[in-house]
């Protein structure tokens, strides 16, 4: 579904955010992207959403090499990727309904269909009945759920989230993650960047850890997080020893 092949990302200021990164994510997977601040998590997600372009290497999403996506084709490309942001990025002068409807309006969906799908998406995040509120009338957790509803309303095959629980308390974080899990159950590929240790402990999903723009750790789903969350340096030597 998503394949990074020796990808480098160097910003104009010379800062190398990703260096020789290779990573493959299959369709229907849930992946946590972890690592310290500055490790390159956001940069990796921005390459997927075509906000940034790889400096070198191949990035293939849904069978399509991003280097072949011209500026004009970026909008159509982005419609197959739902994005959730730490700061929600909601439009504050519009109702919840209009916020969630935006991707459908852009895609040219008919008015009746929009109503149905927006209510379905809001139902999935537990906000049915709040259509006519504006974002500032909602709590942070609720705003984040509106952001998620907007990301999934057009049923994209891929959902990416950059620190979606960064501003939420543990309980709300778990709630948000459970929502992601439910989307994953219906086949959506989910990629979440987070350094929220609490979350990592509760979700035994595949975990990819970045450090200085490289993958330093890739723990498959099902393995308990506890022991993996100790000193990262030990982890590396540990895996080397096993080889």
């Amino acid at each position, binding site marked *: 579904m998503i394949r990074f092949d020796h990808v480098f990302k160097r910003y104009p200021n010379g800062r190398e955010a990703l260096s020789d990164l290779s990573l493959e994510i299959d369709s229907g997977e849930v992946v946590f992207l972890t690592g310290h601040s500055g490790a390159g998590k956001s940069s990796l997600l921005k390459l997927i959403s075509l*906000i940034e372009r790889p400096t070198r290497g191949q990035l293939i999403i849904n069978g399509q090499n991003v280097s072949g996506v011209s500026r004009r084709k970026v909008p159509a490309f982005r419609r197959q990727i739902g994005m959730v942001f730490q700061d929600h*990025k*909601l439009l504050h002068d519009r109702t919840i309904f209009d916020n969630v409807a935006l991707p459908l309006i*852009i895609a040219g969906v*008919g*008015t009746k269909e929009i109503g149905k799908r927006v209510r379905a998406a809001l139902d999935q995040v537990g906000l049915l009945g709040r259509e006519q509120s504006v974002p500032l009338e909602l709590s942070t957790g609720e705003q984040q759920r509106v952001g998620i509803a907007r990301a999934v309303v057009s049923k994209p095959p891929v959902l990416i989230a950059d620190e979606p629980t960064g501003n939420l308390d543990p309980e709300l974080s778990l709630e948000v993650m459970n929502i992601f899990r439910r989307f994953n159950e219906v086949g959506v590929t989910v990629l979440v960047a987070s350094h929220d240790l609490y979350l990592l402990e509760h979700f035994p999903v595949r975990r990819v850890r970045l450090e200085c723009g490289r993958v330093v750790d890739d723990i498959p789903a099902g393995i308990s997080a506890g022991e993996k969350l100790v000193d990262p340096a030990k982890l590396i030597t540990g895996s080397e020893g096993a080889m």
Partner: protein
Amino acid sequence: MSAWLTRHAQTSIGSLGRLSQQKLATLLTVLVIGIALALPACLHLLISNAQNATGNWNKAVDLTVFLKRPTSAEDASRTAGRIKQRRDVSNVEVITADAALKEFRHDSGFGAAIDALNENPLPHTLVVTPAADFTTSANLDSLAADLRAMPSVEVVQLDTAWVNRLNAILETVRRGLIVAAALLALGVMVIVGNTIRLDIQNRRAEIEVTKLVGGTDGFVRRPFLYNGIWYGLGGGITAWIITAAVIAILREPIGRLAGLYGSAFQLGGLDARATLILLGSGIVLGWLGSYLAATRHLRAIEPT
């Protein structure tokens, strides 16, 4: 198709709603556009009215034919009869030398001096009124040439020189109108473009989000194009009102002035065609200005 239409209707109404939320800013922009469009509209009215007026005056041009001396009064009226038969002449009035002298003595107050002359120095005069269909300056010139060629005619006076001069002036003003209209059209586009630029800056966050969720350049641009169209339409209507007000203010005094010259001339306003052109050019300029500005400035806004 119907979804597409609904979208456009919603976008245009949404744009109108947004503009009406910023009443003062919108009003000022519309007023400036209105004034810029009213200037060429008023110039156009100046020219068309002046043409109308001179058209009337051209019809009032008579030819004055002075006959050779000596010519008998009978010869004079025979000549008058011949001229009157021409197709391009509607009337010929004969002023005999005696009648002319009598009038001159009465009007000038030089009675005693004139009495001192032993003979009448004035010639017989014919006042030739051209037929209504033959009042163009070419027709008048050829009529004058024919009259001049008649054996008993000494001098033909045709007072079209000032009409020609006025027409030349109007032609110059018309050229000026084209230049002024082009400059003001450019001005309107700059005003709209700048307003749209500020608008885009204010809605930067919204534009970024729209692009993030897959909005195309065209989709992001659409509301700004509607803004431009509303600005242009509002400006066109304002220009029409300004022009109508100018006409209303000038109609009465100009009518009085024309009356003093014995003319029934009436100041005309914008007709249906001119009104459509005025509103249409407002809309087109507003759209074009916003299209250029939005295309340029929206490109620069990319999500980060």
